[in-house]
């Protein structure tokens, strides 16, 4: 045995002898990924909830038993079918002007999902860009971004959103843009500190030593390592954005009637909250389901994709 062979053997010894034919590593990786997914109840529950809501939103015209905007004043404020005075025609009852509540909830899913994911994506784009730049370049850029952050945190968010919607005029896209444009601070804080830490690590220095440009370092080395945190903040922000839309609609500056939105439904139901509680409870439960589903999915995705779990 030559010296070189001995050194090689030293590295190989602890590992199993190499198999004769090269196995399909990609298939193994996929299998391992699905094994982790199967072992994660939270992820499954979150994915199931969101997929179900997505299906409801997409197939709303086929699922809804009635036109969500059709009023029938003869059947106003009917309770759900299972309580006294309810009717099986209107499964979840009707609202103040006699519109079918189930149909409105089903159509409201569309608004909530679009607003939740749309606004969270806009915030993500703003926050991650600012955070990574501040963390990686430091110095003046960091000071500037930190100033932006402080200013943003000092602004009363809801008030500002109301004012902006008021000035521009309410529509679905304005609501999404404004909610997204005001919810980027979590992304920034999380990515800025992580980038600062990552920037110091040797693999970034190694990437520079092999001649990577700044853009390549940011995309190839830094961003993949931020992915876990971004996923968690994203799903968290989906929940926040859905609630923000509900709050704006509740205050009358969000989605405009008669478009069915869960927040608007709560707002309209608040008059009757004590003697017709389902008007508030049902959209409230729908909101809760969406937010909890998004959060479970985010935590689960973080768990199954993080490299630490791949043992």
């Amino acid at each position, binding site marked *: 045995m030559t*010296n070189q062979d001995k*050194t090689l*053997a030293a590295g190989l010894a602890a590992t199993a002898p190499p198999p004769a034919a090269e196995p399909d590593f990609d298939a193994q990786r996929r299998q391992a990924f699905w094994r982790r997914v199967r072992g994660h109840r939270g992820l499954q529950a979150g994915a199931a909830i969101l997929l179900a809501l997505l299906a409801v939103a997409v197939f709303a015209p086929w699922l809804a038993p009635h036109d969500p905007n059709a009023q029938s004043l003869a059947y106003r404020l009917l309770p759900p079918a299972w309580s006294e005075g309810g009717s099986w025609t209107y499964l979840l009852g009707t609202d103040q002007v006699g519109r079918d509540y189930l149909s409105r909830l089903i159509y409201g899913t569309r608004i909530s999902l679009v607003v939740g994911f749309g606004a969270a994506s806009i915030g993500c784009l703003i926050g991650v860009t600012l955070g990574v730049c501040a963390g990686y370049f430091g110095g003046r850029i960091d000071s500037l971004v930190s100033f932006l952050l402080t200013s943003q945190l000092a602004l009363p968010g809801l008030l500002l959103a109301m004012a902006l919607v008021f000035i521009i005029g309410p529509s679905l896209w304005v609501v999404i843009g404004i909610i997204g444009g005001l919810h980027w601070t979590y992304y920034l804080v999380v990515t800025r500190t992580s980038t600062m830490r990552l920037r110091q690590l040797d693999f970034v220095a*190694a990437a520079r*030593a092999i001649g990577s440009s700044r853009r390549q370092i940011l995309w190839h080395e830094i961003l993949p390592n931020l992915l876990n945190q971004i996923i968690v903040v994203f799903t968290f922000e989906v929940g926040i954005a859905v609630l923000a839309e509900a709050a704006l609609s509740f205050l009358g500056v969000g989605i405009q009637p008669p478009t069915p939105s869960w927040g608007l439904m709560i707002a309209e139901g608040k008059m009757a909250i004590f003697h017709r509680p389902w008007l508030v409870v049902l959209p409230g439960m729908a909101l809760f389901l969406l937010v909890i589903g998004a959060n479970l999915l985010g935590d689960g995705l973080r768990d199954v994709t993080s*490299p630490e779990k791949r043992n």
Partner: protein
Amino acid sequence: MDDTSLLHIDDLDVTLPTAAGPLRAVRGMNLSLRKGEALGIVGESGSGKSMTALALMRLLPPGARLRAGALRYAGHDLEAMPDADFAAQIAGRGIAMIFQEPMTSLNPVYTIERQMTELMVRDGASAARARERALYLLDRVKVPDPAHRLRSYPHQLSGGQRQRVMIAMALMTEPQLLIADEPTTALDVTVQAQILELLAELRQEFGMAMILITHDLAVVANAVDRVMVMYGGQPLESGPARTVLGDPRHPYTRGLLECAPGKAGRHARLNAIPGIVPSLVDPLPGCVFGPRCAHATAECRNGDIARTPRDAQGWFRCLHPQAAAQPAIATRANTADTGVAQPPARPSADIVLSATHITRTFSQRKGIFGKPYQVRAVDDASLQVAHGETVAVVGESGSGKSTLARILLGLDDPDQGEVRLDGRPVAGLSAAERARLVQPVFQDPYSSLNPRRPVGEIVARPLALHGEAGAADLRRETLRMLERVGLPQRVIHSYPNQLSGGQRQRVAIARALILRPRLLLCDEPTSALDVSVQAQILNLLQDLQEEFGLSMLFITHDIGVVRKIADRVAVMRDGRIVETGPAGTVLERPSHDYTALLLSSVPTLAHAFAGAA
């Protein structure tokens, strides 16, 4: 149990819960310690040495299970003692512990005085008396100006001073037993020598027993009476330091001694122990070292190996004890001879790297309104590396060696001076050209690989980045490179966290060499690795140097590594290169006082035995 016995541990087992199953961190640990005695526990990472100490101090991680035949300290049955009694009587009072990392062992928001006197005051001493004792002890551990230091906060102290404060704090309540877990590992070698000397002095003065836990055989040899060698959670050999380290019976002890780069000269190969530390989840029956042992036979795998008594205090756990005829120290001397017999590589006149009068100053300020002040990290440093030559840059922390490395890599620009690679100024090279001339290998194998990328992608990245090879070529070249650094093909799809420290460092070397650079710049490439793995990596680097005709610049604080690998040495201190020359000359006949101090501070086995004889 006679009245001189202080600590008695019999058949201690510690089990940690992990996702893969229970991990047997400590198995069958036996230990007894007399009053005033010093015991060294030596082992690599994962050997269970720290876990034993933590078990004793009830600091085990949550979920850990402890089982012991006996666990007695000075007449107390520690196993049966309630937590509240343990906290009131033993922790800090009877047994005190100091930890490896002086930077995080002190609470940053309290003054030194408050932290030192806390325990005494809580036990009923007056504040004045506690302060008096703190002053006395700070003086004893040789902290300058103790009265002033009492009012300081931890961040105002250097690492060495903090470790002194930690020792003084441990002594406040006059413990009978001091457990020191790697107390000098995070410190510079000159400071390490002072701290070890201090511990020995204090032990004499206070008549205290000590358990010194370390991975460094030479540190143990110089500081304790008795040594226990641990591996894979089990003690394998124990006895008086001189017997165990001078004439080991267990193949593992012998292997450890042989793979430490010490006196053995340039080009002498280290006898690395093959393989890596085994998994302690569901361990195989039989000798725990068996899978890596050259002498293992079938009977070694047949159940637990009993202890074989050796002399009055010593024993070993092996069926094939090594013959006494060939003491390890003599073996090392022999290899040193053969090492000298090989002709050293003849550096040609072809200069790969030349740095002239490099100066780098950092401007810092305290707060936004603070006055800026200058820190000169590198001061007029000049260095040359010829083709095929290995130059070692030696220095302690803060000497500017890492800043110099960054400048030589082209990652940082010097304020003054010029770096030339292959005769061309580095400032004028494109990133791609520079990458083909010099590549780094960093110290920390855990942070030098992107945790989000599989190994194959990490190794292939330099080639892919410059876009010269097709996918098939890329894959072939990656596999070839992995094979050259001694990694199996299948790691190509592993992520870095699935590999051991040594394997990660091999990946880092493969990534550095795939562009076939002319110079490899290694910044402490082995200091985060266990000594048996360090030997593998040093051997590998030496092989690759011959094969690829590499020049190497080796930045290190470890004199043993320098002896093993360097043709020429440059000694750095406070940003300046204070001495340079051929390795033999600088290490044997240093001309600068600081080099001499550095060399004399390094603990060696030979020195320990000379002192004892």
